[in-house]
């Protein structure tokens, strides 16, 4: 779901190029678009990416329990993937995945 962005509502709290021209910015850097935190893809911060191997996974859901950003996607009690829009790359899932299983590996993001 992509909604229309409104001035600095488009993630004013991130690095990178300006999100809006100064003449278009709502006065006082006010956010006129409520609930827009949904559009804030904290995954932008990530410098390491968890890569999940479906074939090794035993669906114990330890990663789901420990992920601080609710980025392990589970459907019908089964681990189905990682939400890269919000995963910040902390690596907790890879550490908590049982060592004998090792279904999650942290890989450096390109450009990081």
């Amino acid at each position: 779901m992509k909604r229309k962005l409104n001035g600095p509502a488009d993630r004013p709290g991130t690095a990178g190029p300006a999100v809006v021209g100064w003449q278009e910015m709502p006065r006082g850097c006010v956010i006129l678009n409520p609930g827009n935190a949904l559009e804030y893809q904290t995954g932008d911060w990530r410098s390491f990416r968890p890569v999940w191997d479906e074939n090794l996974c035993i669906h114990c859901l330890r990663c789901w329990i420990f992920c601080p950003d609710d980025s392990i996607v589970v459907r019908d009690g089964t681990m189905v993937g990682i939400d890269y829009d919000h995963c910040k790359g902390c690596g907790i899932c890879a550490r908590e995945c049982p060592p004998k299983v090792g279904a999650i590996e942290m890989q450096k993001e390109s450009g990081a």
Partner: protein
Amino acid sequence: MGQKVALTGNEAAAFAMRQIDPDVVAAYPITPQTEIVQHFSSFVHDGRVRTEFVTVESEHSAMSACIGSAAAGARTMTATCSQGLALMWEMLYIASAFRLPLVMPVVNRALSGPINIHCDHSDAMGARDSGWIQLYSESAQEVYDNLIQAVRIAEHAQVHLPVMVCQDGFVTSHGLENLEIEPDEAVRAFVGEYRPEYHLLDPERPITMGPLALQNAYFEARRQLAAAMHEAKPVILAVAREFEALTGRSYGFFEAYRMADAELVAVALNSTAGTLKEAVDELRRQGTRAGLLKPRVFRPFPWEEMADALTRPGIRAVAVLDRADTNSTLGGPLFNDVRAALFDAGRRPPVKNYIYGLGGRDVSFAELVSVFGDLRATARDGGTDTPVTYLGVQPRRSGELAAAGTRRR
């Protein structure tokens, strides 16, 4: 239309606040501003205003409460000076960045230390870069008039910036003067209703104020604030024209006193301009073409207009009087802005700086006349080898006393 009354500068400020009848006032008392808060709280107690008066435990809290109130869409005022203004400092920047149209009388008093309660401009000058509009007032009349106009300037859709209205501590704040006041209804009609475009208590249009703005947005917000200062200039003049139509009293960016054919010109803020007018009159009687330029608006700085006024061919030398120092070794803040304004002028007169009256040190008529004597020499010799003079500071009293002091130790 207006009625003549006798009020102190503080009473004039409180009187204007009563007529403006803001929705919220959050304030903390501090000498010499205390009377403003005291008189205004009497108006609240007596039911003469509808204002919600918030007592707070410090000026930092006063400004914080004002920011919350204005963000919620209420017309909001406070008042302070000196250490109080210093304590507000971080919140001043938040108020202007949120583009909240607060209006605040500032009763200029020296900043500690050493601790002192008397007049100078170091408090307001410390806030000159905070994004607040600054109006300066020579008299109780100007305090009253500037405060009423400040509401319109601050709330103008093109501006939306907070405004401080400065007056000299004790000299103006506690001196009784005759002034003309307008009827309550006239002032209420002039300031009108405050209808912000958006505010925090509007359930139809929820907004967020004060988001984190990092590398990708902060610069744009600051650029926008700089633009609002530009926009404020024509608005200040338009509001002044409307005010003149109502009251007959005229205001601009500065007052030009006997400037038309002046050769030697002094530039000064607030009450000292009053003494300077006397000095100019006396010098004129003696045949010296003296003049005075009294800035009313210091932020935004009307540099183009000031450069025009000070580079008129007849002007041979200019003295800028500062009641504050920048401690840069190159004089006071007004001097630096005036001098910078003249830099690009093809022909510019020599400009000298006089730092005077710090901590309430009296500046005498004779001292101000002597400034024009200096200017005459500057005009003749052309140069300014000592651009900055400390006017009225006591030099070493005598060799013997100094020696005696040494022996005692």
